[in-house]
């Protein structure tokens, strides 16, 4: 299955493990969240990169203690209009996660740009649409009103542009 990343196709080099069964000794592995919880100790000792597949009913904050060790998080779209993963993605980015964030399931070109904006960077796109459709889809809107989105540099943040002399987007813990 091809993956879309930075507007090009790449192949998936990760090993996808199930909830149980032997893990290979080496190589980068993605495990379901339940397995991460169960086998955290041995998983964290392993060589190779570690990733997790989260469900969209799992809470992002449940991942917080694991995040520094994770290089990939996969979030599912069981249907393209099930938008929970948009919030989880943004929460993970807000928690400081900078690794791969992959969308899988019903991922369609018309939602691609929204996914990029909330912080996804890798997409499990299947074979239905040609690469050119995806490339176009990633830049349909040149602007966004919302501030503090995870951007790819292509869209301008309207409010920030309007008030360039104001303070830049500062991440600061909220007082109350």
């Amino acid at each position, binding site marked *: 299955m091809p993956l879309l990343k930075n507007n090009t196709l790449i192949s998936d080099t990760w090993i996808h493990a199930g909830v149980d069964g032997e893990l290979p000794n080496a190589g980068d592995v993605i495990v379901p969240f339940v397995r991460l919880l169960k086998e955290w100790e041995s998983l964290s000792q392993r060589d190779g990169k570690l990733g997790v597949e989260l469900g969209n009913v799992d809470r992002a904050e449940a991942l917080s203690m694991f995040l520094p060790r994770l290089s990939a998080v996969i979030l599912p779209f069981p249907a393209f209009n099930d938008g929970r993963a948009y919030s989880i993605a943004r929460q993970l980015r807000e928690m400081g996660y900078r690794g791969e964030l992959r969308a899988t399931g019903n991922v369609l070109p018309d939602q691609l740009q929204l996914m990029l904006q909330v912080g996804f960077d890798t997409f499990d796109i299947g074979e239905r649409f040609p690469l050119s459709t995806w490339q176009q889809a990633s830049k349909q*809107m040149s602007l966004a009103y919302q501030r503090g989105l995870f951007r790819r540099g292509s869209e301008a943040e309207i409010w920030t542009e309007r008030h360039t002399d104001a*303070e830049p987007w500062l991440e600061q*813990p909220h007082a109350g």
Partner: protein
Amino acid sequence: MYRYDEFDHQFVRDRTNQFRNQADRRLKGELTEEEFRPLRLMNGLYLQLHAYMLRVAIPYGTLSSRQMRQLAFIADKWDKGYGHFTTRQNIQYNWIKLEDTADILDALAEVEMHAIQTSGNCIRNVTTDHWAGAAADEIADPRPVGELLRQWSSLHPEFSYLPRKFKIAVTGAPNDRAAVKVHDIGLRLHKNAEGAVGWEVIVGGGLGRTPMVGVTVRDFLPEHELIGYLEAIMRVYNLYGRRDNKYKARIKILVHELGAEKFKSEVEAEYARRPHASTEVEERELKRIAAYFAAPQLEKLPRWSAAFEEAKLKSPDFARWAKNNLGPHHADGYAIVNISLKPDGGIPGDATSDQMRVMADLAERYSFDELRVSHAQNIVLPHVKKDDLFAIWQALQGADLAAANYGLAGDIIACPGLDYCALATARSIPISQSISRKFANSARQDEIGKLKINISGCINACGHHHVGHIGILGLDKKGEEYYQITLGGSSAENASIGTILGPGFAGHEVADAIETILDTYLKLREPDEEFLAAYRRVGPKPFKEALYATA
């Protein structure tokens, strides 16, 4: 009024191009209907009984004359010469072709309008008080916040695929004309003893099949925290709102199932956890927007207008219209004109392109170029000199727009119902027409006084029947239309949901039933007691007896 800058223009242009491309791909078969439906819905395009229907946003109900004229132009060029103004301060066109839609969106963009997010499971057109900026009782004009929210919610990437639609209403006045307690989020401005203002945040109101009055989660939120706090609410809803059953997917159900306290603590936890940006940009943006809504250059006038008083003496018809259709303006010598789109026996909320142009001309000449759409499906001229009222009335008369029934029995809210709507279980417009004809006599309407009759053609409650003083809901019983009557609803500051009176009625019986109810009211009311007050005092019993005793 707000004006687009280069960014707003570019944003809408991008969006229209995107839709043009999507419609193209659909027509070529590259997108299935299932994939295309949410895309077209998020651009306001429905498929209805007779054709596509396009719902155009009129943000916080404010229009310029130029925009109104463009709406008329669209009605003539791509529809059948009319449009339907809705309870959500939108306009709907009923006879639209998919292949024309992108051109229509371009025509809208020319006058700084769009149809973005007028449908779909996203944040819908933000509504507000139709007297905003003009009302005598207002603390502050809520439209700057309305515009801020319009921008913030437009194509919000995190909140474009919510469990269900999401409606926000804002009011800046203590007398709630925006129904903030029956919206997903209602915002209501308060002023404290020190003179500072803050927003009460009400969550989880709604109508539809489970009508609920919202709960207050913050009493006095500082204005610059609005966006951050709303994001927290939206996120809690997006994550935990039900997606297994679309009838339980609105935020009101989440609030209800979690309980108000738990819901509130989830929101507060999310709000505290999120990294908070400096809100300097938002504050500046709000200031920038607010400048566009500066009050117009009103003249210093005496409260008393001789011309107006004289005209009333000369023409009893004008006097009656003036008594019913004017609202109190904050400036002396000015009035708010409510143009009723409810002629006797007419279709509530429908206006022809000619009528739109007449209203646009009047606004240009007499009301600082401004019009408003009210959630009762009427049009408002917000800033009119009392001296000009007679001339306006005459012009309205010439265009069949002078119905003097604002706020009375003839001022009925009705959704399109089965005559147009694919979801309907019964017709609502003909019911409205039959009632309107029955009470066409003006003395009778005046005697009955303030009354809200609201009609929906199915349980979705687009016609707000739950919050009508008299609500009528059209249902289907084995292929036959029948109608359930509720009494005692209100969407005002003391909001309440109406109570079902008893077994339903066939279509031709409804107007008589309403008459029986109103006769009963006239008999039992105390001096100057309005219908709703009387109902709240005596309860449903006398009305039930009158209605069902004879049957």
